[in-house]
């Protein structure tokens, strides 16, 4: 009896059939929908399905509109003309070839983190540890790149330089992913086996990672050329073989973006976004993660190992944040450096990734435009600061508002799906816990 209730509760609570964890869980998500829809006599026409997709993004649009209004009020209060400010932001973000490239460069780590956050949030794990996981990944990646870069010289003598270059980059990326994943997985482990709130543990792990980075950059990872000087803590520069190549598009002459800092990290991130979309919605692995995120008790009744899924989603989330860190080193800075402040290396991408993930409707594909948008906001805000003297920290405040507005407007979706359900029959206990623990 109890199982039956839980069963239908989770099936109705979000109004999106694709998230129901039961019955269909051994199949892919898609088959699950069909089975569940047949079972309930609730069939979705293609049009209605598309409409629902659109409505999924409604909170995002509401949030954007509200944030725009509040930002305008703030700008007026700061004696700036909002229209002028937005104009400068737009020009700063996409006004020129270089501006657009900078926007995409800024968007790249946000997209990596955003993909990871999407996985974690879909799995019901509120991962605030993007910053720390980025640092963990970057530390591992830069160490591998530096060590293999040294080893490259004898390898060149063995007459296979090209292949070895690829191995250096691949190993660094993989190492960054794995160490970031372990760092994120640690929080998942603590949650699964010791019931430590993952929000708190990831925040603490962020601080620990920053200190660890400062320690290593002032110690064994310090650029030998810098030793003895009291400069910015940074590693040696990577050899060119260990760098991700710059990216240009074969349009015009010279090629588009040929003279900018845009690098291949962007392509890797976009490809992985698609891969993770397929993973989450077309494989049973992804299905289990989402099932646990929707309803832990129902998932465990259905035979899913909830603890393992918790760790797995945090592992993947940490891995993507780790990739963000290592790509930042291999593609952009060519060394790991910081100013000692918490966001000195990451540029707060670990937090902005959360905003982008929510803004992308917790969908990896949606995270692509969302990350580009926030990259543009950050780059545009710098232009606005130069031209109007309005501090760029306005964007941090606006990002916070967007987060609040996105999660606040979800209630309208919930109400809508409830109305839809109540047309059919009224199940009990619709107030499914949407809490974190």
């Amino acid at each position: 009896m109890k199982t039956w209730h839980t069963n239908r509760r989770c099936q109705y609570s979000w109004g999106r059939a694709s998230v129901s964890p039961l019955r269909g869980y051994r199949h892919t998500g898609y088959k699950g929908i069909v089975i569940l829809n047949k079972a309930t006599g609730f069939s979705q026409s293609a049009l209605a399905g598309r409409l629902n997709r659109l409505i999924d993004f409604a909170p995002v649009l509401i949030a954007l509109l509200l944030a725009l209004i509040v930002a305008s009020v703030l700008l007026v209060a700061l004696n700036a003309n909002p229209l002028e400010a937005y104009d400068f932001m737009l020009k700063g973000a996409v006004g020129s070839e270089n501006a657009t490239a900078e926007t995409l460069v800024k968007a790249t780590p946000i997209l990596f983190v955003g993909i990871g956050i999407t996985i974690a949030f879909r799995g019901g794990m509120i991962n605030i540890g993007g910053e720390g996981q980025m640092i963990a990944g970057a530390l591992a990646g830069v160490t591998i790149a530096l060590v293999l870069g040294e080893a490259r010289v004898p390898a060149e003598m063995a007459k296979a330089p090209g292949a070895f270059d690829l191995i250096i980059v691949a190993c660094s990326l993989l190492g960054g992913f794995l160490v970031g994943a372990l760092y994120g997985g640690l929080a998942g482990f603590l949650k699964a086996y010791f019931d430590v709130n993952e929000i708190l543990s990831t925040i603490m792990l962020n601080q620990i990672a920053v200190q660890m980075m400062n320690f290593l950059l002032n110690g064994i990872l310090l650029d030998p050329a810098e030793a003895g000087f009291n400069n910015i803590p940074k590693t040696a520069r990577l050899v060119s073989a260990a760098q991700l190549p710059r990216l240009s598009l074969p349009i015009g002459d010279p090629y588009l973006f040929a003279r900018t800092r845009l690098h291949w990290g962007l392509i890797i991130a976009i490809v992985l976004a698609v891969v993770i979309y397929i993973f989450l919605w077309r494989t049973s692995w992804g299905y289990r993660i989402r099932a646990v995120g929707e309803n832990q008790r129902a998932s465990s009744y259905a035979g899913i190992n909830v603890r393992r899924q918790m760790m797995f989603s945090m592992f993947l989330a940490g891995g993507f944040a780790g990739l963000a860190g290592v790509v930042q080193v291999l593609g952009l800075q060519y060394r790991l450096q910081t100013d000692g402040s918490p966001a000195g290396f990451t540029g707060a991408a670990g937090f902005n990734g959360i905003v982008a993930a929510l803004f992308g409707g917790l969908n990896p594909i949606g995270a692509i435009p969302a990350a580009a948008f926030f990259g543009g906001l950050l780059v545009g805000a710098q232009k606005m600061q130069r031209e109007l003297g309005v501090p760029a920290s306005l964007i941090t405040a606006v990002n916070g508002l967007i987060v609040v507005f996105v999660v606040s407007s979800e209630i309208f979706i919930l109400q809508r799906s409830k109305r839809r359900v109540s047309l059919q029959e009224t199940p009990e206990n619709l107030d499914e816990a949407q809490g974190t623990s």
Partner: protein
Amino acid sequence: MGLDEIFTASVFASAIRLATPYIFAALGETFAQRSGVLNLGVDGMMLMGAFTGFYAVHVAQVGAVMSEPASLILGLAVALIVGALMGLAMAFVSVTLKAKQGISGIGVYLFGLGLSELLFQEWVGTPKSVSGFPRIEFPLLTDLPIIGEIFFNHNLLVYVAFALVPISAYVLNNTTFGLMIRAVGQNPEAADAMGVNVARVRYATTTIGGMLAGLAGASLSIALINLFQQNLTAGQGFIAVALVYFGGWRPWTVAAGAMLFSFVNALQLQIKVIGADIPSEFAVMAPYVITIIALVFATKRHEQPTALTKPYERGE
């Protein structure tokens, strides 16, 4: 380097001082969580309280429009009001709009972080100091050796914070309001059936939490450090949330956790001062590592308010 060099009276004294913002913020968070609201925006509220309190004092003192004590009281009032407003906003989002509390709290944090920095850069520019709450001189007591330095050499807000511990415990455990808070956090359906207005109680506790967070911020900017800079709190609000878990949602143990944490912090500072052979990064890291370990061993699931993070909806 002997132990007597590390465990000096001044370390104990600074541990008591450092505990002040944690106690304020964590007590406020205790009220909110006992009623079922996880307010993760504490750090943002602290930052806003710290900045606005500091700014009020700064303007009043630079303009010399009022006496110094009056300017400090004004600063406190402003911090309390700003904290209350942010608490109300958090309550609106998590009680009325039923938003996911873990995530919306991060939004509130980012908002406070960004806005306090924005206003600081716009209105103040460079870090400036104010004359904050002076240390209170107790007749005779302050002159006592060791005891005087540890206990009777602090500013007013330190004593207010410690006085709030028994007051909070009393309110939670011995008053009707406290009973309503606990009922709403433990079993909102039953509380509702008994005629308790669940939403109103949660609004009240979250607003109290916001006020105390504002006060916690002000205790930094106009009583302990006496200046404001961007990200002044450096995540202390999150530690305060962790302390509530660590302290099992009870004011006394929460305050004890705050003392333990600030003692580790004071030790860490002292180790830096005497130049011990420990990398400073590990010393700074230590409190966070200890917090995680403490959460592993101290989280008692059965003591957590059952309805924590769960919005209440009446069954129709």
